[in-house]
């Protein structure tokens, strides 16, 4: 049968548009769903996505890719890699799946919103593939960990986490609710794909893929490189939207969407990817430090992309760069100290050799973060595990929903950024977190963070045990030290504090 060559029909079909006769344009594309911002249809028709694909191409490529990943999994399942892997690496996978899998599925609804409501025909076309991508990502990242449930109930949190009130789940939901579940199609293309996925794809997927193959985890490496190639494609939907907004006098509005999304995404990386790269991944398998990775793959890349669009770097760029020495170390220490409140087993990553590496990558680490770890280490070596566990909750930020952290030890600098609104005192971890809130107080002000819920009696009994119940963490699920404190042994017989 004769087939018309691709180049003769592709441009026509990818940009199919029509003039509605039975309903008005406003009924077909309600503003709150489409977010055209008064820019006429003719302008949206100029949307030009950089990556082009046809449906048959998509299906054949994905089929081959996924069956590759599934067959690697089947083969290695017999090899029982998971039983041999370093516990720090296991924790990495369990944390990743719990934070990501269900949100991938959620992202398919964000893509579907663009596929239906974007006024740009090219965006609608791309987003159909995006919705298929995200549905597959949800499925594959639920299916793979499922095979390990027999090993530990923590693997079940791939599906369970996002349906609980675990603090990390609240933080992730707060972010994804903001950027993909409750925004119009244009904002989704900018906040989800440009702001979050561009960075996230690099961060979590490129970085983790490298660490996974170093750690010998070929199942995980093949899975995430399959996911990453999709992300790299559908993350390109935001750029053309930005071009249209900028060309039509909406530069400031566009920039605000970009900035809020980048800041909020950064906070999520700082708690998820930061500890994994600098602490959980076994020392000998670490490729780059989190900071090095962030600078090379996030900071520099965003600067270039923003400059290409004629946008300035966000006003908080310098704060973000400075925070690369602080925030993720604080998130790690917080997750470790409050380890019972997470569904994975945090690896301390604070052995003498680890600390040498940390000092090299982050000069001054020993005099700052090291001071807190000294106390923890001594307690472990003096049979005072009880003092290495909390009796209260960390204060969490009303924007990121993550602990408010800063530099400890000799460089002590921890700051609370406050805002009083309608008689309520809000606490933020940074100027930028507060700025995000101030861009749209109506949007955020009703939200209750974990502390607000505690203080309004939603957590019972009103203590840490009640908090663990509230977070749905059963005894076999709550985190413990990944290496059973083996790392602290190296400090025995060294000089003791206290």
């Amino acid at each position, binding site marked *: 049968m004769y087939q018309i060559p691709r180049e003769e029909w592709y441009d026509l079909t990818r940009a199919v548009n029509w003039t509605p006769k039975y309903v008005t344009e406003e009924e077909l594309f309600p503003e709150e769903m489409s977010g055209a911002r008064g820019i006429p249809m003719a302008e949206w028709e100029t949307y030009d996505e950089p990556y082009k694909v046809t449906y048959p191409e998509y299906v054949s490529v994905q089929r081959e890719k996924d069956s590759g990943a599934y067959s690697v999994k089947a083969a290695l399942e017999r090899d029982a890699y998971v039983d041999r892997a370093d516990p720090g690496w296991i924790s990495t996978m369990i944390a990743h799946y719990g934070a990501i899998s269900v949100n991938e599925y959620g992202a398919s609804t964000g893509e579907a919103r663009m596929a239906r409501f974007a006024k740009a025909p090219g965006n609608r076309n791309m987003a159909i593939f995006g919705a298929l991508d995200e549905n597959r990502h949800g499925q594959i990242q639920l299916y793979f960990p499922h095979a390990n449930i027999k090993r530990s109930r923590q693997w079940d949190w791939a599906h369970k986490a996002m349906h609980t009130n675990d603090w990390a789940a609240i933080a992730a939901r707060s972010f994804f609710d903001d950027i993909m579940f409750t925004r119009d199609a244009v904002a989704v293309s900018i906040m989800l794909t440009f702001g979050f996925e561009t960075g996230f794809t690099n961060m979590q997927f490129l970085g983790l893929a490298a660490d996974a193959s170093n750690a010998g985890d070929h199942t995980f490496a093949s899975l995430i490189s399959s996911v990453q190639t999709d992300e790299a494609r559908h993350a390109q939907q935001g750029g053309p939207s930005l071009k249209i907004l900028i060309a039509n006098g909406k530069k400031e509005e566009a920039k605000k969407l970009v900035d809020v999304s980048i800041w909020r995404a950064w906070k999520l990386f700082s708690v998820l990817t930061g500890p994994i790269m600098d602490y959980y991944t076994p020392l000998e398998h670490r490729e780059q430090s989190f900071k090095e990775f962030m600078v090379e793959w996030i900071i520099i890349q965003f600067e270039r992309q923003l400059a290409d669009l004629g946008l300035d770097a966000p006003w908080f760029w310098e704060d973000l760069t400075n925070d690369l020495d602080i925030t993720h*170390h*604080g998130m790690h*220490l*917080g997750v470790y*100290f409050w380890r019972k409140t997470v569904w994975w087993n945090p690896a301390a990553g604070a052995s003498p050799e680890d600390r040498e590496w940390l000092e090299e990558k982050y000069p001054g680490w020993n005099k700052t*973060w090291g*001071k*807190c770890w*000294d*106390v*923890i280490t001594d*307690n472990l070596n003096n049979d005072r595990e009880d*003092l*290495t566990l*909390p*009796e*209260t*909750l*960390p*204060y969490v930020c009303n924007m990121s929903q993550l*602990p*408010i*952290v*800063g*530099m*400890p*030890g000799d460089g*002590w600098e*921890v*700051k*609370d950024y*406050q805002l*009083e609104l309608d008689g309520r*005192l809000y*606490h933020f971890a940074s100027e930028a977190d507060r700025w995000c809130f101030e861009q749209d107080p109506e949007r955020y002000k009703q939200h209750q963070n974990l*502390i607000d819920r*505690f*203080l309004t009696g939603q957590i019972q009994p009103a203590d840490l045990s009640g908090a663990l119940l509230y977070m749905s963490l059963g005894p076999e699920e709550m985190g413990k030290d990944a290496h059973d404190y083996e790392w602290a042994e190296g400090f025995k017989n060294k000089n003791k*504090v*206290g």
Partner: protein
Amino acid sequence: MAALPICLNFEGDFVLQLVGVDTEDTMDQVAEKCAHHTVNRRVAPQPEKVMRVRLHGSSESYPRDMKVSDAHWRLTETIDVIFADK
């Protein structure tokens, strides 16, 4: 007497914490309650020093025998606890 939740920032620590105090507590008692969640957990004790309480970011500490009720803190007010010579 009334319970008052506050947001604690302890010198040398890395994180703000939720701590419950009482409006009848003196500032020394507040410092003790705060130290329970911090000192010997992530901050080494400094036995030769005293712990003083101040409003977050302020340069002046409250008198040690001052009562919480006299400090007029807001709900979840943020306070610093610092080590001082006296």
